[in-house]
């Protein structure tokens, strides 16, 4: 069948129909969740959180050939989560879209990147659950822009299939649960990273010394 044999309006109609048919088979999810305030004491630090455009507008598109395509818009929800978490962890925070100049404006700079997203759906695993894995790269710099460390942080979320629950709603719930887990991982694991722990120890010593010797 030669597509060019059709008249122009017919071609448009066919293209529209093909687009409709393809999009009808795609699972489209815009991740939308609420994240609670963390019950933690704030560190007395000024922190710059760098979330660039690619992080803010992040969309995951599955490349698995065996299943129907899945498109998940994660950006807005992950910005909401990390903004919340960092605000709860530190006394003063600013969210930036690019790396700031290392002029000592901040004590710490945290730059986040999405490293990997994976998902598993019941038709693949034969289990009654939707699962989502998220992996983030956290690059931590001191106030002068010197790299302290790069921390790869992974998280997991799942939701059981329910009667009458759409795959969109189940995937949203599993992703929100994975994001919530990412927040928990960041809060509980941040100061356990050896290089960050060392930096905190040195920073506290510095602060204590400067408090003792204000001149």
């Amino acid at each position: 069948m030669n597509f060019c044999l059709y008249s122009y309006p017919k071609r448009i109609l066919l293209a529209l129909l093909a687009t409709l048919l393809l999009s009808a088979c795609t699972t489209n999810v815009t991740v939308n969740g609420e994240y609670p305030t963390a019950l933690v004491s704030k560190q007395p630090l000024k922190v710059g959180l760098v979330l660039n455009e690619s992080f803010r507008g992040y969309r995951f598109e599955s490349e698995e050939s065996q299943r129907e395509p899945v498109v998940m818009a994660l950006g807005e929800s992950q910005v909401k989560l990390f903004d919340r978490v960092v605000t709860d962890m530190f006394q003063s925070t600013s969210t930036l879209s690019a790396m700031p100049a290392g002029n000592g404006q901040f004590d710490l700079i945290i730059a986040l990147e999405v490293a990997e997203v994976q998902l598993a759906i019941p038709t693949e695993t034969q289990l009654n659950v939707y699962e989502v894995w998220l992996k983030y790269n956290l690059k931590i710099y001191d106030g002068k822009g010197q790299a302290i460390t790069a921390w790869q942080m992974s998280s997991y979320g799942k939701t059981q299939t329910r009667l009458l629950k759409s795959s969109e709603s189940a995937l949203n719930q599993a992703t929100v649960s994975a994001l919530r887990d990412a927040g928990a991982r960041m809060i509980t694991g941040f100061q356990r990273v050896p290089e960050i722990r060392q930096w905190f120890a040195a920073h506290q010593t510095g602060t204590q010394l400067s408090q003792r010797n204000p001149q």
Partner: protein
Amino acid sequence: MNRIALVSAITLLLLTGCGTSTSIDEFRVSTKELELKGNEQIVVMGRRHSGEYETEPGFIDCIGDKLANNGLIKVMPEQEFLDGFYPWFEPRTAPLGLKRMGAALNNPLIGNRIRQLGIRYMIWVDGKTETSEKTGAMSCALSPAGGGCFGFTSWDKYSNYEAIIWDLKQLDEKGRVTVDSKGSSYVFAVGAPIPLIAQVQSGACEGIGKRLQGFFITQNTGP
């Protein structure tokens, strides 16, 4: 004759089918009922650390409702507790034993909030409801003249849960309740489908909730 046999078979199915059997075991550390003052409350939580299953949030809500006994016992909703104590009771971080719970309570932020909210007991529920593979076949058709289904299908459900009561004031275990519930569901159709669904999970909830209720004695006076 055939019609009589069919009616008898359906009646038999109605009578014996979709029934559930529930067995409950209970262990109490002491025969004395657990004290719960007027300003104290209980939280019921589901275990979700296993990769293969999660204790269903709906089941936890159901136990909470049964335990509350129309408001006689104050029960904090699970999600409210999880949000209020984020991130310390998430699947990754929740204490699996009393030793870790003690360490969590030593964190002044967690300990103070538990005391402020008057959370005296924490009940952990672990388990799941499984559905066996369906047997039989049913097909439905729709035409301009009308529609209908024909066939027979059945499946079994099996629930197994354990609830453990922790006293957060004395930091010890006060008791356990284990429930096993199973039942078969059927759908048969000659024209319209007739479902006979076994209420396995709600049977387990009813059983575990009522038993947990029996552990507590409420006092409507202050401390």
